């Protein structure tokens, strides 16, 4: 039995103080704001309702589309063997970890007004004599399609993993029994497979829905401000219209919704573990023509969908296309490093007070501070959680709470609570730490829990001081986990967009903020620089993801 020892109090002191000051205090300020009489006017409520409905609409649509792509993909990976299977599966998982600005820039490079497809098609048609042409030829940025596509791009991996796991645990004999009883493929799916998958499908859909519901960067960058979801509306009200009370009200609605969905999700998870056979599905090579067509079609679709945007981005960042220099008809493609060298120059008409390269330095500074801070707070919390007592059972969900609040809400909380300090650049790493802390704790805790007490006792009985024991027993095991957690914090901070968009000072932009500003400016040079910065960010984040994958403890959970 664990009682509340002074050591535990000491472990919890820093993390809880931090959460109290930077999460709960701002949260209560938001509450206070939203319940004032001047906030709860009918026009405000009407706007909130409108925004809420649209948020639901786009999230439901995105979730359905994600299922449409994700389910067949899950089936593909669960049933068939083919060349490059693990590579393709890894490819579908990469976007989930990428910053929203990178994904938005990738889709922009492919389908945007200055993207490969639009410029290529325009050039082709002009060359064959068809003009005048609308510009852009295929409208993408600023449409609902763009938002939906990016959401599917992000979340397909969730369906592939959750539904795919359930599918591969399904006893293949159930399908065979149904077939021998006269069920054709559609009826096997409808009467046997789907009912058995229902809990997992529900869990996957909820999780996808949750991400789509709280999505911010994708909607702002690909849809624009006219697609006012809760997140975007909070941003607009707080930053552009300076209507903090309404922003607070929207934040509250957002928090309540996420909380409800999260509770539903955890409940589904506990239910979805039953009803699966222990025998695992055997994968096989596609045999019949129908199977071969299915495998070929989906391999092609998935590789195109997951590779092209991420390929278009770096290529576009080193390619000069004619639209950069006015409207000459001939498409002049050529290699260029201009977009990268421009990053170091502070032009007179620059949208920044500093050269864009400074944004990268800021980002690195913020990320380092975030790593330091989240490790300092995460290590004691994780070591307390590794041997949970009564208080830990209560404190565990509290630590994860910031994860449920959207980044924009966190940013708004800071504005509401620390308005006077907003000129201070160090608020940004504090917000980043709030976002990163749950991940850091979740990474450290299993490693810490895996160290048996007997090892420390053995070390002590052999004459090691507590510090020596920690150094020789705990540290070697912890080192991997710490590095992994640090990388997590670093990449999260590098790519963080929601909170930063609300908090960053114009003179201290981060990489994602710089990309956002470049993308919202006219001109080929600005566009090119956005591509260049997004490519850099993508490279850094991918390196981070690869490092985390390498350090991952075997058997660690997925979501």
């Amino acid at each position, binding site marked *: 039995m664990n009682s509340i020892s002074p050591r535990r109090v000491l472990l919890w002191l820093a993390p809880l103080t931090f959460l109290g000051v930077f999460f709960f205090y701002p949260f209560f300020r938001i509450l206070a704001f939203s319940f004032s009489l001047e906030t709860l006017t009918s026009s405000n409520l009407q706007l909130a309702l409108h925004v809420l409905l649209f948020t639901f609409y786009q999230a439901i649509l995105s979730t359905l589309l994600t299922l449409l792509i994700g389910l067949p993909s899950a089936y593909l990976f669960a049933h068939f063997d083919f060349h490059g299977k693990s590579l393709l599966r890894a490819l579908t998982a990469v976007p989930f970890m990428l910053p929203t600005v990178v994904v938005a820039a990738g889709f922009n490079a492919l389908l945007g007004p200055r993207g490969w497809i639009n410029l290529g098609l325009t050039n082709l048609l002009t060359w064959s004599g068809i003009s005048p042409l609308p510009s852009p030829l295929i409208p993408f940025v600023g449409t609902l399609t763009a938002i939906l596509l990016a959401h599917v791009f992000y979340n397909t991996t969730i369906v592939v993993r959750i539904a795919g796991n359930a599918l591969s645990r399904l006893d293949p004999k159930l399908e065979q029994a149904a077939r021998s009883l006269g069920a*054709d493929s559609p009826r096997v799916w409808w009467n046997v497979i789907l009912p058995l998958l229902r809990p997992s499908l529900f869990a996957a859909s909820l999780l996808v829905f949750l991400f789509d519901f709280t999505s911010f960067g994708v909607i702002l960058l690909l849809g624009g401000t006219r697609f006012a979801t809760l997140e975007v509306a909070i941003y607009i009200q707080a930053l552009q219209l300076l209507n903090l009370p309404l922003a607070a009200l929207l934040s509250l609605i957002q928090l309540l919704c996420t909380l409800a969905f999260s509770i539903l999700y955890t409940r589904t998870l506990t239910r979805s573990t039953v009803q699966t056979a222990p025998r695992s599905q055997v994968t096989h090579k596609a045999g019949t023509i129908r199977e071969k067509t299915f495998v070929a079609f989906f391999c092609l679709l998935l590789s195109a969908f997951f590779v092209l945007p991420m390929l278009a981005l770096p290529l576009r960042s080193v390619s000069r296309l004619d639209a950069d220099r006015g409207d000459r008809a001939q498409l002049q493609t050529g290699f260029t490093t201009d977009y990268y060298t421009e990053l170091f120059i502070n032009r007179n008409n620059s949208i920044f007070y500093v050269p864009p390269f400074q944004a990268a330095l800021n980002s690195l500074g913020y990320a380092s501070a975030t790593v330091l801070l989240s490790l300092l707070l995460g290590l004691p919390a994780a070591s307390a959680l590794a041997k949970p007592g009564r208080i830990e059972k209560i404190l565990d969900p509290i630590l994860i709470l910031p994860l449920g609040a959207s980044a924009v809400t966190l940013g708004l909380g800071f504005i509401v609570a620390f308005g006077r300090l907003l000129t201070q650049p160090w608020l940004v790493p504090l917000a980043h730490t709030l976002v990163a802390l749950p991940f850091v704790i979740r990474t450290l805790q299993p490693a810490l829990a895996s160290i048996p007490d007997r090892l420390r006792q053995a070390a002590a009985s052999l004459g090691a001081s507590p510090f020596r024991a920690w150094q020789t027993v705990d540290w070697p095991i912890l080192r991997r986990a710490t590095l992994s957690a640090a990388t997590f914090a670093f990449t999260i901070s590098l790519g963080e967009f929601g909170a930063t968009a609300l908090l960053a000072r114009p003179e201290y932009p981060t990489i994602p903020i710089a990309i956002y500003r470049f993308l919202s400016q006219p001109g080929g040079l600005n566009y090119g620089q956005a591509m260049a910065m997004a490519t850099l960010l993508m490279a850094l984040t991918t390196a981070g993801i690869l490092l985390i994958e390498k350090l991952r403890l075997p058997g660690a959970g997925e979501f």
Partner: protein
Amino acid sequence: MLELRDIYKMYEGQPLLRGISFRVDVGETVCLLGASGSGKSTLLRMIAGLELPDAGQIFWDGINLASTPPHRRDFGLVFQDYALFPHLNVFDNTAFGLKMKNWTRSQITSRVHEVLELVNLRGFETRQVTDLSGGEQQRVAFARALAPRPRLLMFDEPLGALDRALREDLLNELRGILHQTRIPAIYVTHDQEEAFAIADRVLLLHDGQIVRAGNPKEVWADPKSAWAAEFLGLGNVIGGKVVNSEWKVKTGFGVFDVNCGHKHRAGEEVHLLARPFPAPNEANIVRGRAADVIFQSDRFKVTLDNGLYFYLDGEPKVGEKIEVKVKIECLG
């Protein structure tokens, strides 16, 4: 009526089935008997249409089934681990095939009741299949396969997961049901007692081929190969060499007189079967000392120091000298 012609199948680069041909006639229960991994389940799955043969054809009433998908074959399949649908209750599991055939609700209800009656599960309709015992689950699996009146029933080691007493009960019931419905059936097992108990005809599968076919009595009386005699546990299989005289075989246990009915050349290696039951009228005698004596309710299983075993009525002492007159058969 089902006919298989020259079925070949490779498995992981090795030949699994090498030219299997047989027929199942109306009202007949054919038992495929073979060791695990001999390809008998694969054969069933190919008949069901769940797998395709590399070569050879499967016919029903003279019609090639190659292009008939499993759900159009009308063959019932019962698995060892039942493969009941965990999300459906007993009634809905049993009704599954009927729903697939688009029967009306009242037709389904009366047929399900009828079949559940047949397998002694009346009153179980609303029970969850996950709450049933192994034996009850297997009855539901029978009922489910039986309900749509398939033109052929296939059983893939259906009693393998059950304990002995339950197995005997279920086997008797199943034999009764098959007899009553006259549905032709293929029964796959590795247990020869089960096979002999239920089969009209037994097919012994070994090394990808059918090495012996016949009714249980014929197969028991004349296994025709050392492997079959050993697999069926018919007695002591002894290797030996034919000596000058065509009827004498020299073995490690003595020289035996063997009347095979066919001729052997002198010096040829042959296998003999010494049944474990003493035959007082035979001339061949096996001698040895009792090394192990096991009481088996109505007899004693006595293993001699030379490794041969016999069933004796009296109880010898361990170490006692024993002479047994035995019938020696030639296994070719």
